[in-house]
């Protein structure tokens, strides 16, 4: 039963591959995203750039808002719960969202524990900066991993760092001998069985997407070419000059991520992307990606 449950959870992620999942805060934005070809939307009260600017405690979105978005679009709807806040997860599952993102963008509710995601029927996606973090989340039941990047900045540098780290560490595992895997599992702070599985397959047992600071079609193609299987775009779209045009360009750029001709075409027509914040200017305590354990 548990195995079939995981197959259904990763099965939906399989359907999202090669697509763009867009952050939206109301029904109008959800409609724009769907019409642009988003394969799913993330229903939020505030996009990460605004959470970052306004501060305060960021919690699960208002149910009324999520429900309104669910009623507006026919594509899957995701929503975020705070790290460790399993009751927000229970509420979102009861509401019927299609995926829950246990997200570092919201203020963590537990400084030691993540949600036990095996206990849920709704699938969860979790952020990771490296292979150890990804495997810990998978051990807890995450059915999809995304890079954390640094949400709400429009700076892709850490999404790149994270996808490169995960891909490199997986490749390294495939070279290790059986005796070395035990020590590596200890270093990664991840279950040995999962480490052995990745060493054998050369990839994560769940889909591996990218998120955090992706603001242009070129950024989206960059993380895809580095090994991501789909892309989350948060603040980038609705903080840009022409969201509908940028959303369409993002979708085409992800579908044809390895085709420079299409990338040129979609980059040519764009208005101003979000202005963004260089991550190098953030104080360490301002970074969202260090949340999660």
């Amino acid at each position: 039963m548990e195995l079939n449950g995981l197959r259904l959870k990763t099965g939906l992620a399989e359907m999202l591959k090669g697509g763009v999942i867009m952050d939206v805060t109301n029904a109008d934005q959800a409609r724009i995203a769907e019409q642009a070809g988003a394969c799913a939307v993330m229903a939020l009260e505030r996009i990460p750039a605004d959470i970052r600017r306004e501060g305060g405690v960021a919690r699960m979105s208002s149910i009324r808002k999520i429900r309104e978005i669910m009623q507006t679009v026919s594509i899957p709807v995701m929503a975020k719960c705070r790290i460790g806040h399993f009751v927000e997860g229970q509420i979102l599952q009861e509401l019927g969202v299609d995926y829950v993102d246990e997200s570092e963008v919201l203020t963590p509710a537990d400084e030691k524990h993540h949600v036990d995601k095996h206990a849920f029927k709704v699938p969860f996606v979790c952020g990771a900066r490296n292979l150890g973090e990804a495997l810990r989340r998978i051990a807890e039941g995450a059915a999809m991993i995304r890079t954390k990047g640094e949400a709400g900045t429009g700076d892709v540098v850490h999404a790149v760092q994270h996808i490169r780290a995960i891909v490199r560490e997986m490749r390294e595992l495939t070279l290790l001998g059986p005796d070395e895997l035990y020590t590596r599992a200890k270093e990664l702070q991840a279950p040995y069985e999962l480490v052995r599985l990745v060493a054998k397959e050369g990839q994560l047992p769940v889909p591996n997407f990218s998120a955090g600071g992706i603001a242009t079609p070129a950024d989206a193609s960059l993380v895809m070419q580095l090994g991501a299987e789909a892309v989350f775009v948060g603040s980038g779209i609705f903080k840009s000059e022409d969201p509908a045009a940028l959303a369409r360009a993002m979708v085409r750029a992800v579908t044809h991520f390895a085709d420079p001709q299409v990338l040129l075409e979609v980059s040519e027509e764009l208005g101003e992307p979000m202005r963004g914040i260089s991550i190098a200017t953030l104080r360490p305590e301002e970074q969202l990606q260090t949340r999660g354990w």
Partner: protein
Amino acid sequence: MTIGILALQGAFAAHARALERLGAAPCAAGAHPGGQELFWKYVSRAQDFDGLDGLILPGGESTTMLKLLQEEGCWEQLLAFVQTRPVLGTCAGAILLSREVTHPAQLSLGVLDATIVRNAYGRQVDSSIRQGNWLPAPESAQQLEMVFIRAPQFSRLGTGVRVLAQEGELPVAVQQGQVMAATFHPELSSDLRVHAHFIDLVRSSTPPLTNQSLFSASASTPGCSPGSS
């Protein structure tokens, strides 16, 4: 013989793995190993349809695929293809093939005389793995595993449509001439009877070599040029 897999968005990689388990080799590999007669390749642009003997429309988001098909200028090409060559649509692919789409209504290729209801079982929490019957070989008592993910349902089938698989009383895989459609995801199961049936369909509808096709086959293997995916 080459089977294309529409690779705009969705579970195209899972279909490629399913075809490989049935002995297909990727076209893009360049070398054509001796004795391997079945190849697969990804299709994402209008020119990729050249030389294909059959096509798979995978699961994913049908609205996303529709949008991309229209933007890439592939729609006319795809429509012409599915009217003349074998095609298998799974989940979102079945939606694209059906004549009428509801909940909500959307454009489709219309080559399968059926009405299909999107997200008919509900949302992701209502997704399920069920056992059903594969009708072309009823003597084999073995049930067919069916993975339904935010799946559609046929609400009407035309008289020319044959039911290939049933889950309870519901038709979940159908065939009309060269068009096959399943509302579940055979590419996510280890039982490959649906794909094997489609390969047989492609094989039986591939025209015997004429002088002309022999000539072009000697110039280059259709659809199998190196790096063509």
